[in-house]
């Protein structure tokens, strides 16, 4: 997949860097914390596992269903982050992948397949669509790219109504029955939480691995300066196509999970509104790390289903929030958190050097 090589690699968090070693206190527990802090994966994985275990014992009924939806949306938003945050392509048609996954799962409802198999099929179909979109949109970037993805998403939305006998137009396709997974009954809300949170966590980990790999560095190079990256021998187009296919794959997974939760798919999942919602999630959460999409998805789910209960005012508030984030708080919620952590660290180090 990755033909390009970026010659100048920067290891921002190399654990054996002598400078970092010198700063770290060497005694017992604090040394463990320092090491864990430098190796970014461990504390995040611990936090994720704690959350996955704690949530079903803290929340019940509709709250747990809301949390499940938030995690599924979070995975969807993560797929958008791959394009927005990693390669710097602003897609306004991300719902196409989500909807493709959802409709694939809905159309397979009579085959009684293992849910995980459905996930893989849905993800592959969405990835194929992503490849087509990448071929069509590969020439453009910036605003043209945003508009082209918007148009392609809209065309897909219209196809649902043109081929009414296949996709059933406005009615959508419903009636997915929960198939058992390793003897687990997925009708049960707690079991569905384990299932969807588990899938989300696994693919978040996979994405983390990709981002840390050579391919991830190539993405960053292409995002920061496509011209320079091309001059260094990276094929910008191949990198963007790869990002697109990864994004489509993950978006498709989220779509399958969503349709399994809602027992079907409706045209709203492919709409511009959905594409806009995922943009909201990504930017409210922040694009600087992989928690952002999940935080943004939680905010979005809470705002639309609880605080405003689907009333018309929710559109106004969501617009206002997005506006505030775009104009005033660039980094989103995770950006604010990171800034806070950095300030705290500074405070601690100055206090330590003073004493």
């Amino acid at each position, binding site marked *: 997949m990755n033909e390009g090589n970026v010659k100048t690699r920067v290891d921002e968090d190399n654990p054996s860097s002598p400078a970092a070693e010198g700063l770290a206190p060497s005694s017992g527990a604090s040394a463990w914390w320092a090491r864990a802090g430098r190796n970014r994966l461990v504390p995040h994985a611990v936090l994720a596992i704690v959350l996955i275990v704690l949530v079903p014992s803290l929340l019940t009924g509709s709250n747990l269903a809301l949390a499940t939806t938030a995690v599924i949306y979070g995975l969807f938003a993560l797929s958008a982050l791959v394009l927005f945050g990693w390669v710097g392509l602003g897609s306004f048609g991300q719902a196409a992948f989500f909807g493709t996954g959802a409709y694939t799962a809905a159309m397979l409802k009579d085959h009684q397949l293992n849910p995980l198999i459905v996930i893989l099929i849905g993800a592959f179909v969405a990835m194929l669509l992503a490849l087509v979109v990448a071929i069509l949109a590969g020439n453009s970037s*910036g605003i*043209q790219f945003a508009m*082209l993805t918007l*148009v392609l998403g809209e065309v897909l939305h219209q196809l649902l109504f043109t081929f009414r006998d296949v996709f059933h137009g406005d009615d959508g396709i419903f009636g997915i029955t929960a198939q058992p997974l390793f003897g687990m009954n997925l009708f049960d809300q707690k079991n569905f939480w384990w299932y969807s949170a588990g899938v989300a966590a696994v693919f978040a980990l996979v994405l983390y691995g990709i981002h840390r790999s050579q391919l991830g560095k190539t993405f960053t190079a292409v995002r920061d300066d496509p011209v320079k990256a*091309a001059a260094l021998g990276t094929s910008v187009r191949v990198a963007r196509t790869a990002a697109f296919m990864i994004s489509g794959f993950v978006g498709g997974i989220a779509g399958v999970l969503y349709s399994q939760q809602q027992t079907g798919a409706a045209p709203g999942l492919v709409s511009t509104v959905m594409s806009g919602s995922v943009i909201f999630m990504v930017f409210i959460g922040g694009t600087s790390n992989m928690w952002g999409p999940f935080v943004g998805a939680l905010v979005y789910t809470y705002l639309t289903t609880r605080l405003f209960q689907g009333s018309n005012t929710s*559109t106004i508030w969501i*617009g206002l*929030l997005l*506006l505030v984030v775009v104009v005033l708080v660039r980094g989103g919620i995770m950006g604010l958190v990171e800034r806070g952590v950095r300030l705290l660290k500074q405070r601690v180090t100055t206090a330590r050097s003073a004493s």
Partner: protein
Amino acid sequence: MVELLNAIVSGLALAMPLFLAASGLTLIYGVMRVINFAHGGFFMVGAYVATSALRGQVHGFWAFIGAVILAGIVVAIFSAACEEIIFRWLDPSEHMLSLLASYALSLIIAGGAVQIWGAAAKTQPAPPLLAGSWSFGGVVLAQNDVFMIIMGLLLAAGLWALLNQTSFGKQATAVAGDPVMAEALGIRVRWVAIGVFAAGGLLAGMAGGLASPQYSIAPGLDQLFVLQSFAVIILGGFGSIGGAFGASLLLGLLESILATYAPSLSGYGFYVAMAIVLMLRPQGLAIAFRPRRAPQPEVSA
């Protein structure tokens, strides 16, 4: 033949509100480098204001014209206020930020419109003077279509005169070329920015008012028009008014000819034309239509 002529006339009438909406969009982009996602919202607000002013009743021709002008002025003020409150704070070189901000603005407008005018569809009958039609051997000329074509041409001429014959137009051209140099030469860039947004809003609002008898005015009209205006400025080339005019004609005709001869494809004409142009020629078709010293199209990396 008669069928084709009818399709051409109604295509021209479809093209005019499209051109007015898209010309505002492309004017704002050309000078301020802001792609205004909320432009469809401006159009919709214009339609709502005109309908509210006439209370959805049949009124005389001049009352209708008055409502259209009122719609234009209300939206112009609103648009200028948006520039003052939102867009002046954004770095013009970061296109995605202004696109996102205007997307957020479009959500606010869509939600606000439902709050103010309700979710039910409104209709605005055309004034009696425009309700009839002339017939020439089977070719039906709806008076409203003729009126739309005349108004479209008048406003296009007015816009051309504003940009090429007035000092404001010269200043706007200078700001489009190099805002820093324009500022250094004593042009008040802030006032030009507000003026350009107001002019864009005026065009969108008047387009909404003029088109109000043709469309069912309901939530969703904004999205329809923003997609169509995007199609126009992509086809016509970013920032080119003449290109927008040509592209509106092309798309209006394409849409009405498809609706006549291939009704099942009629929803796709816009999208397919737009996608093909973006893939093959991202800078737009109509380089020859560009006004002198127009901003250069973006080159994708």
